């Protein structure tokens, strides 16, 4: 269970342009389920997602993963949590141009310096699973949108994370590729992963594999 208790996030606090992106949200997110955060631009869904994934810290409030207080962890432990517990898929995929698909997928493991042979095997297995084996030596700038996304998914799964986080994963995809992505999400859910997505794409929020849709507006939960 991911418990979010009275979380708020303010940007430019004390400045004339102070902005409260998230205001006192309290939520429980079940593990091994697919949860979608839905809402218009500026509703706070990406901010909330980044705090759940330990990419940013709340201004107030607590986030617990099981019994562990994530929002109170010192930075060095957050790095470890990000590396071991969460896998991230970004809206623009954030693949490193100039590197091959294989290198991009292996990148998150480099700080841990695992055995290189085992790492390559693990990356190959993931690329095989997501139909990208033939493209492993291709530079990422040569990939189509769907291929780039599958590469990003492989990269997110490399460290075998418990929770997969995706921010607007279908924003740059057409309907067919979006449906294909949700099919992959369904498989990952079946494999026992917790998945949290942000999206205002109906293909995502209406997908059969989605267990819960939380609607945000103006930094608050409107409907959960």
């Amino acid at each position, binding site marked *: 269970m991911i418990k979010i*208790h009275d*979380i708020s996030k303010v940007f430019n606090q004390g400045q004339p342009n102070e902005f409260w992106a998230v205001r006192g949200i309290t939520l429980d997110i079940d593990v091994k389920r697919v949860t979608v955060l839905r809402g218009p631009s500026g509703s706070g869904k990406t901010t909330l997602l980044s705090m759940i994934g330990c990419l940013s810290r709340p*201004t107030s*409030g*607590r986030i617990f993963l099981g019994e562990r*207080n994530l*929002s*109170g962890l*010192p930075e*060095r432990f957050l790095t470890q949590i990000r590396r071991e517990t969460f896998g991230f898929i970004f809206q623009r995929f954030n693949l490193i141009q100039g590197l091959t698909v294989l290198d991009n997928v292996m990148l998150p493991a480099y700080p841990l310096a695992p055995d290189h042979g085992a790492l390559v095997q693990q990356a190959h297995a993931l690329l095989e699973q997501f139909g990208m084996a033939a493209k492993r030596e291709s530079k990422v700038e040569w990939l189509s949108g769907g291929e780039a996304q599958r590469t990003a998914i492989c990269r997110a799964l490399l460290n075998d994370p418990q929770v997969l986080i995706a921010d607007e994963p279908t924003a740059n995809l057409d309907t067919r590729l979006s449906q294909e992505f949700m099919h992959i999400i369904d498989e990952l859910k079946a494999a026992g992963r917790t998945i949290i997505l942000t999206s205002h794409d109906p293909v995502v929020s209406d997908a059969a594999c989605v267990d819960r849709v939380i609607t945000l507006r103006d930094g608050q939960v409107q409907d959960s």
Partner: protein
Amino acid sequence: MLLSPAILALIGVSAVVTALLLLAAVFAVRVLRHWDLQSGSELQLRLERSTYLISTLVTFAIAAEVVALLLFVYNAESMHTQFVGAMCATGVLNVNAWGWPALLLKITVFFTGSVWLLLNRLDNQGYDYPLIRLKYGLLLVLLPLVAVSGLVQLQYFLNLNPDVITSCCGSLFSPNAQGVAAEVSAVTPRDAMLALYGSGVLVLASGAVYLRRRRFATLFAASATIAFPVAIVAIVSSVALYVYEHPHHHCPFCILKGGHDYIGYWLYIPLFSATALALGVGALAPWHNIASLRTAVAADARRYTMIALTGFALFYAVATYAIVRSNLTMAGTWW
């Protein structure tokens, strides 16, 4: 006041460190008053975000103050040519009434600061800030100590008058003189050496016991607390005499000179470092029951104990070597 790069550096370090600790003390008071890890309040999260920055700044400040002890002694030693009557650091420290208190305060800051650094390192390895109140509480103790040390040092440097004829080590560290230095010099070499090796066996044995059984850390720290002053007394009353090959020269500073192969540094650096680490082991070990620190306490205390034992062993080896290689033969007189 005599201006030299070392004096300016020492005054600068003390001023900067005191200023930094003063800023950190304001934060420390807020931590002691408001810290509550169960709370998700804005203040608590701000304290959590700031603590790592503050403790990192304080770490650099205290580390600078720890290193400053070495510079202080080196500077006192190197300035002896500027004062009539001074043969070594003893004469320079004797130029006015602030010299010896400044040195003793610096030594106190060295040991207190070292223990704080080790505690801070341990606390930073716990995910739930387990020692945060203790380390910031200690900071409030350290601040007045560092401030007084800096002020006394400043008084010492401001009152350095090259026209003053000072006393050399021969008159201060003499059994016939008055004061603590004279009393230490008057300790018989036999008693001093028995105490030196006795306390050495105690500290090495207690450290070995801690390494093997992970128990009696306090005994190890207490043994080091005894071994340190005993070692200083033994250097003054006995070891130094063998280094100088002179039965009446007791100075603990002349052994730092190049003419004596800088053997003093080989004695003091291992002794001070080992004592600081042993005190650190005593300060760390009680926290092994805290879940978030269990692994860190075991690893750190083991590492510090091993380094401390190496330091003590090196000190006793160098002291013994200084005696054995000496041409001074006092068989029949002292032994």
